[in-house]
C-alpha cells in the first residue's frame, strides 16, 4: 500500500520577471523517509521550500504537503501545525530569552514534548535566562533546531541545518535526524554537506537552475552510477559511447573516462567491441554525482 507523498508538487514554477527560480518542479517526497535536497546556491531550494510553506506564491503549478494544498491559505495553515521548519538563517527573536523562546514556540504546537525540550536544553548547554541576541552563533543554531526537534511533527523541513555547527554538533544533528525518522517523522532537508547526506539520506533530489535533475533513492544511485575508465589502442571515438545512461565523456589521447548514471554494462560491452585494452569500473560517490550533474558543460 502506497502512502500519499508528504510533499507532492505538480509543475511548480516561480518566475521573477525573466528569471525562472523554479521551473516545472515535480517533486514527490515519500513518507517515513529521509529525503535530501541538493543544489547549488541559487538553484531554487529555498524558493521551493518557501512555496511549500505559503511564504511565496507559485507563478504556476500547484502542490500539496501532507495532502493539504499549498496555495490555499487555510489548508496551508492547518498543515503548518504538523510541519516543523527551520529556515537557513536559523531565525530567532533576539529580544527573547532562551526560556521565553521555548515557551513561545511550545504554545503553538500540540505535538510539543517538554521532556525532549528539557533534555536538549541541557544537552546543548543553553543558558535559560540569556537573551538570544547574546548567544553565540553555534548556540543560536542549536536553539533554532531545538524548536523543531522538541516536537513530533509529521514532516520536518530543514534548510541547511548543519551550517553553523562544529563537527560534534553535526554528529548530534545527524543522530537526532535519525532518531526522529525512527519515530515516524518524514524528513526533507537541504544541505551542502554531501558526506553527511550520503550517510543518512534514503532519497536524493538534486535541483539545478530550478529544475529537478536527479530524483532517486540513494541505494539506486549507488548501484547505477559508475565511472568507467578505458584505455584503447587508438584514440577512441566519443560518438560510439553516447548511449542511454552516459552523462559525460572525457577523452585524452587513447584514454577515455565515461561517467554513466546507468547502463554501464553496455558501455563496457561497447568498449570490448572496440578492442579496449584496459577497463576499470568504479562506483561514484554522491559528491561526484552532484558535481558532474550540475557543473556547466
Amino acid at each position: 500500500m502506497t502512502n500519499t507523498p508528504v510533499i507532492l508538487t505538480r509543475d511548480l514554477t516561480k518566475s521573477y520577471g525573466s528569471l525562472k527560480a523554479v521551473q516545472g518542479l515535480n517533486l514527490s517526497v515519500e513518507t517515513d523517509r529521509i529525503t535530501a535536497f541538493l543544489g547549488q546556491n541559487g538553484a531554487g531550494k529555498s524558493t521551493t521550500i518557501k512555496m511549500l510553506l505559503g511564504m511565496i506564491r507559485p507563478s504556476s503549478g500547484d502542490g500539496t504537503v501532507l495532502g493539504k494544498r499549498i496555495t490555499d491559505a487555510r489548508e496551508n495553515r492547518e498543515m503548518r501545525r504538523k510541519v516543523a521548519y527551520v529556515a537557513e538563517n536559523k531565525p530567532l527573536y533576539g529580544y527573547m530569552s532562551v526560556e521565553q523562546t521555548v515557551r513561545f514556540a511550545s504554545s503553538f504546537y500540540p505535538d510539543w514534548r517538554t521532556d525532549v525540550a528539557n533534555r536538549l536544553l541541557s544537552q546543548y548547554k543553553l543558558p535559560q535566562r540569556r537573551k538570544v541576541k547574546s548567544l553565540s552563533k553555534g548556540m543560536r543554531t542549536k536553539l533554532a533546531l531545538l524548536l523543531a526537534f522538541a516536537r513530533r511533527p509529521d514532516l520536518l523541513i530543514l534548510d541547511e541545518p548543519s551550517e553553523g555547527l562544529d563537527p560534534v554538533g553535526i554528529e548530534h544533528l545527524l543522530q537526532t535526524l535519525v532518531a526522529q525518522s525512527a519515530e515516524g517523522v518524514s524528513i526533507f532537508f537541504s544541505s551542502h554537506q554531501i558526506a553527511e547526506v550520503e550517510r543518512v539520506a534514503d532519497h536524493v533530489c538534486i535541483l539545478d537552475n530550478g529544475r529537478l535533475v536527479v530524483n532517486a533513492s540513494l541505494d539506486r544511485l549507488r548501484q547505477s552510477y559508475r565511472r568507467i575508465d578505458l584505455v584503447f589502442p587508438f584514440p577512441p571515438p566519443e560518438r560510439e559511447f553516447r548511449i542511454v545512461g552516459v552523462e559525460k565523456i572525457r577523452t585524452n589521447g587513447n584514454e577515455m573516462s565515461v561517467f554513466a548514471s546507468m547502463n554501464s554494462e553496455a558501455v563496457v560491452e561497447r568498449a570490448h567491441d572496440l578492442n579496449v585494452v584496459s577497463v576499470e569500473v568504479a562506483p561514484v560517490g554522491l559528491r561526484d554525482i552532484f558535481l558532474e550533474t550540475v557543473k556547466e558543460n
Partner: protein
Amino acid sequence: MFFKLNPTTGQPLYLQLMQQIRHAAETGALQDGEQLPGIRTLAEELVVSPNTIAKAYSELEHDGILELRHGSGAFLTVRRRTRSLTDHVQVAQRRLRELIERLREEGLLDEEIRRAFEAELLYPAEIVGKR
C-alpha cells in the same frame, strides 16, 4: 557488535549491513538466539537512516537468518546448514590468503589486488588486463 558502513563504496548500505551480520553469524561473533540492537538504537549508533536497518533486518528475515519478534526485536536464528557455511567460509579465507600471498610475490601491490577483486565482484564477466 561492530558494524561499519561505508557510504562511498557503490554498494547500498543495507546490503553492506546484511553482509556484515551474515559474516558475524558465520564466524560466531553473533550466537544463535542472540538479540541484535533495535532498529532505532542501531540507526543512532551507526548514524544511518533507520530505513537502512529496517530493510537489512527485513531481508535477513526473508532469508531465514533473523527472526523479527514483534515488540521484542531481532534475533539471530542460525540454522544447522550455516555451521557448514562457517567451515566453507574458513576454507575460502585460507585459499584467499594463499592467493593474495602469491599475487604479492608476483609483485602486485595491495591496492592493485584490491581493485582487481572489486572490479571482478562488480562485473564478473569483465576481463581486466593491463597493457
